[in-house]
């Protein structure tokens, strides 16, 4: 395959994925509410476009399957089929199958065609079920009802249909009978004669190969085009001949010549049964030419239909993620260079130059914000897949669960969104599986039968918070603790807060589920969830109330590349505190400075644990004349960092630390200052954690204190 073809295929896959996404969304909406014609049209268009494009690439297997789905959707569109929950479910499964076909194509795997067979069978059963009603039905301006009405009988025409179905027809999930049933909806099958001469004897017979050939006379108010359409789908593998009955005798000779070896005799017998004279076959007929012309016209008319123009260009441009990353990297460098120029200008004390650099840094700031926002995508992109998951999983478990999504427009860095899918999926599945009880238990607890899962996202002080909440039974504190003690994860006499206990479920190999279902306990454990979230510099916390439900709260930084930093100095060392974590700065009261044993500050009646950075990092420098406290917060906890000097805001490009420093808890990265110096970026969550734990340990039991302070830090 040429490169151009590869590229075009790539576009096809992306387009199809978008369309499939749209389709899935509509189907899920449809299940909840009544359907609108627009939705049905959109569904049809999605399948139709995929089929059409797949046809261009000669992806026959995809065409074959999507065609049937499209048929069903067409019936939905014209109102002869109703979209109920079962059908929506079936269509969802068809959607999945198309997706898996495309995925397999993209990965150049063998196509899972067999998986589509039951779906096709179900679909055709659905279509067949409406077919009779369709024919007799009074409503619908369709050909079928016209044909059934005797009044329009005078325009009816007769046709000879010779259907030499291909050997793989059955294997592809199609039944010759369904074509005949379909013909019945369009008019009348006057006579039909099967030809089974090619059916081999003995061991050569393969029960899954089609040997059937059908010859039939059809009468109805249809044109050749409509009849050809009925067989559009099998035209490639099968030899289908359609001609007006009047012109049939002229065609018979040609058909005989094309017949399989040994079939000719049976074919002649079949035609005899249909009332066609085999002698006439040899008579010359001038009408033969126009027939083939019609036939050709139909053939050439069909492909353009598949090549229907795409709906208007979408307003998005797809850009390779790598290009954007490169751009952001460059802008990071630009930020640093801009800061350096600004510093030089100030040192040179040239006011016009300072002003110029300020304008430049202002522009850089805007470019930075713009570029970063390009990477931001709405979290709805991951949320959108959950209605389906909740639906499927709850069906599977026989639970009645409703999903409520809010804050889907909250924006998040693209790279994070990609990595967030799996952990979120796991938490949601966990909530469905273990969180929500079954109806009986819920009723016993006085709760409505229908469980609810909430997915929520919002911005909070420079981070994005994603909540997965359920109104289930809540985490069983005692059970978790017992299990943790049994596994030696905590000491039997440890005094742990609820939060700490809940966090134990993130330990590797921890599961309190009494029985492992095929949903949870499938390899990915909660420890993997925590690990992947921590890799994104985020954290997870759990709130849980017995009988009221649990909430998993994931907190993530807005972006991974650049942050607004707050520069502080201790001795010679410069540190960057992410600005979003800073609440306020105060001067350390002189009275507090001497009392190092009691590291707490009374901040307007609130106890604020303090952390002396000089001591913590063992900088060894003498404390400055004045000391300041930077009050930082992460989530619900706050702490004060004691520093010598406050240097102000600074845009910081995060440079990751080398793998050597990966295990340093208190530092999350580094950055280069305008002067070329390196400043370390403080990892505020872990510092706060350290400070608050140090403080709470002071109040806990003496023995406990000794044990934990040795292991802590």
């Amino acid at each position, binding site marked *: 395959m040429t490169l151009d073809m590869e590229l075009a295929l790539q576009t096809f896959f992306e387009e199809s994925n978008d369309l499939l996404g749209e389709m899935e969304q509509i189907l899920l909406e449809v299940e909840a509410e009544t359907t609108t014609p627009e939705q049905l049209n959109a569904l049809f268009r999605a399948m139709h476009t995929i089929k059409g494009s797949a046809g261009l690439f000669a992806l026959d297997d995809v065409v074959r399957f999507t065609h049937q789905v499209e048929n069903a959707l067409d019936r939905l569109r014209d109102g002869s089929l109703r979209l109920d929950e079962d059908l929506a479910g079936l269509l969802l499964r068809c959607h999945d199958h198309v997706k898996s076909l495309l995925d397999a194509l993209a990965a150049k795997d063998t196509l899972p065609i067999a998986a589509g067979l039951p779906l096709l069978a179900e679909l055709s059963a659905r279509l067949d079920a409406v077919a009779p009603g369709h024919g007799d039905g009074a409503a619908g301006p369709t050909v079928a009802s016209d044909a059934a009405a005797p009044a329009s009988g005078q325009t009816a025409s007769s046709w000879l249909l010779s259907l030499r179905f291909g050997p793989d027809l059955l294997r592809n999930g199609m*039944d010759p*009978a369904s074509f*005949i049933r379909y013909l019945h909806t369009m008019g009348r099958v006057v006579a039909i004669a099967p030809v089974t001469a090619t059916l081999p*004897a*003995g061991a050569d017979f393969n029960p899954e190969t089609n040997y059937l050939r059908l010859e039939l006379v059809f009468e109805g108010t249809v044109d050749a085009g409509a009849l050809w359409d009925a067989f559009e789908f099998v035209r490639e593998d099968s030899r289908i001949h359609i001609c007006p009955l009047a012109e049939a005798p002229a065609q018979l000779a040609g058909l005989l010549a094309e017949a399989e070896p040994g079939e000719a005799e049976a074919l002649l017998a079949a035609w005899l049964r249909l009332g066609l004279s085999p002698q006439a076959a040899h008579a010359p007929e001038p009408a033969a030419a126009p027939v083939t012309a019609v036939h050709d016209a139909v053939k050439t008319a069909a492909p353009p239909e598949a090549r229907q123009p795409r709906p208007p260009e979408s307003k998005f441009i797809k850009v390779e993620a790598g290009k954007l990353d490169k751009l952001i990297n460059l802008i990071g460098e630009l930020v640093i260079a801009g800061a350096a120029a600004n510093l030089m200008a100030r040192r040179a004390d040239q006011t016009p130059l300072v002003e110029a650099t300020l304008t430049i840094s202002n522009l850089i700031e805007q470019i930075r914000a713009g570029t970063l926002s390009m990477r931001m995508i709405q979290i709805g992109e991951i949320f959108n897949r959950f209605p389906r998951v909740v639906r499927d999983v709850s069906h599977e478990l026989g639970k009645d669960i409703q999903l409520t999504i809010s804050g889907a427009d909250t924006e998040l860095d693209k790279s994070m969104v990609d990595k967030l899918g799996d952990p979120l999926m796991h938490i949601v599945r966990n909530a469905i599986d273990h969180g929500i009880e079954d109806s009986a238990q819920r009723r016993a607890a006085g709760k409505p039968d229908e469980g609810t899962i909430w997915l929520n996202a919002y911005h909070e002080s420079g981070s994005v918070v994603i909540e997965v909440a359920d109104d289930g039974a809540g985490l069983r504190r005692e059970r978790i603790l017992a299990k943790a003690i049994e596994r030696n994860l905590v000491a039997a006499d440890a005094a742990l807060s609820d939060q700490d206990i809940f966090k134990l479920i993130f330990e590797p190999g921890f599961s309190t589920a009494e029985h492992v279902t095929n949903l949870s306990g499938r390899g990915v454990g909660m420890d993997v969830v925590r690990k992947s979230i921590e890799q994104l510099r985020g954290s997870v916390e759990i709130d849980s109330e017995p009988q009221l439900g649990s909430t998993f709260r994931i907190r993530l930084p807005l972006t991974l590349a650049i942050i607004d930093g707050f520069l502080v100095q201790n001795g010679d060392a410069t540190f960057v505190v992410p600005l979003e974590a800073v609440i306020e700065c105060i001067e350390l009261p002189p009275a507090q400075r001497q009392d190092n044993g009691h590291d707490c500050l009374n901040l307007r009646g609130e106890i604020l644990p303090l952390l002396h950075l000089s001591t913590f990092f063992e900088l060894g420098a003498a404390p400055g004349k004045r000391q300041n406290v930077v009050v930082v917060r992460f989530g619900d906890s706050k702490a004060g960092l004691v520093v010598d000097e406050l240097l102000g805001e600074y845009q910081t490009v995060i440079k990751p630390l080398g793998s050597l420093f990966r295990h340093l808890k208190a530092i999350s990265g580094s950055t280069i200052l305008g002067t070329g110096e390196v400043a370390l970026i403080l990892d505020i969550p872990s510092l706060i954690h350290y400070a608050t734990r140090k403080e709470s340990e002071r109040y806990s039991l003496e023995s406990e204190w000794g044990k934990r302070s040795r292991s802590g830090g």
Partner: protein
Amino acid sequence: MSHCLSLSGEATIFQAAELHHTLLDALAQAQPLRVDLSAITEFDCAAAQLLIWLQREGRRLGVPLALCAPGAPVRELIALLGLDTELDVEEERA
């Protein structure tokens, strides 16, 4: 004595291979075989072909064979495709 085989449930492309084996086994016993079709709930062209093959095999191998008591699904397909010329089906039950 004649051997009676009763087919039941779905007889479609999905069961074709399995059905083929069952019928082959039945044929191998080389005694008069009656196949009861009354309990078949679904019947498609694959199954119809299989029965056509069975009938021809019976004739070829000299095993007397009768297909009998077709239920509604079987009858419907036979009528739809005009298979009565290919399949010899007795109405009465075995």
